[in-house]
């Protein structure tokens, strides 16, 4: 159960995620990123994790895939507004810096 609401804001597309990031919703994130990328004027994608109540390793995989998709189109994608509980998981898996853009994606 994941709802993704895109908020267009000029050159930045913000994807508001609400629900759970797991095996059953990973594909939804990839689709939403691909849809955003259709807009050629875009310069940056932000994935807003504020409403994400659950994220497991499939969810992390989905976030990295989203970043890769954006990178293939030459755009940065970063996560923002991560709650404490989700931050903890991202750090355990060593992907916090890469996802928040504190460290550039490889």
């Amino acid at each position, binding site marked *: *159960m994941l709802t993704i609401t895109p908020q267009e804001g000029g050159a930045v597309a913000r994807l508001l995620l609400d629900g759970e990031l*797991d*095996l059953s919703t990973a594909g939804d994130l990839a689709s939403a990123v691909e849809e955003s990328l259709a807009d050629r004027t875009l310069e940056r994608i932000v994935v807003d994790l504020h409403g994400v109540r659950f994220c497991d*390793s499939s969810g*992390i995989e989905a976030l990295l895939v989203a970043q890769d998709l954006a990178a293939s189109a030459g755009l940065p994608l970063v996560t923002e507004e991560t709650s404490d509980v989700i931050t903890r998981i991202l750090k355990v898996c060593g992907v916090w810096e890469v996802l928040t853009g504190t460290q550039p994606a490889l």
Partner: protein
Amino acid sequence: MSQLSARLDLPVNRPDAPRYARRAARMLLAGWGFQDPRWLDDAELVVSELVTNAVRHGGGLIELRLEAHDEAIVVSAADGSSVVPRRRAAGGGPRDDGGRGIAIIEEFAQDWGVENHEGGKRVWVRLAAMPAQQGRRMT
């Protein structure tokens, strides 16, 4: 010997199996008296990783088990594949594919392991029982 236990079959080939498995596990553990929301979040995460691995890499029917012991909860998932999960070598970069499920399990578990189960295997994880709750538990 465990005081309370449960075993649940889960269908394979359903990507929503991890979701329903972790929710059912949360309700069951809450019904056993483990009602701290943070502790339940951690337990849900471990259940989700075990079931996701069984759906993605395992085979046959999945059997989820939960057991309440004096000081620990043991959660396990059995599947029909005899292939055993392997912890990835440390030192990989953040983008190394996979290996995150076991990393998460190791972070939250006291211990984990694999044993044979009817031609396949059972992956088990031992979690410290929620400390504050132990006195209040009624069995």
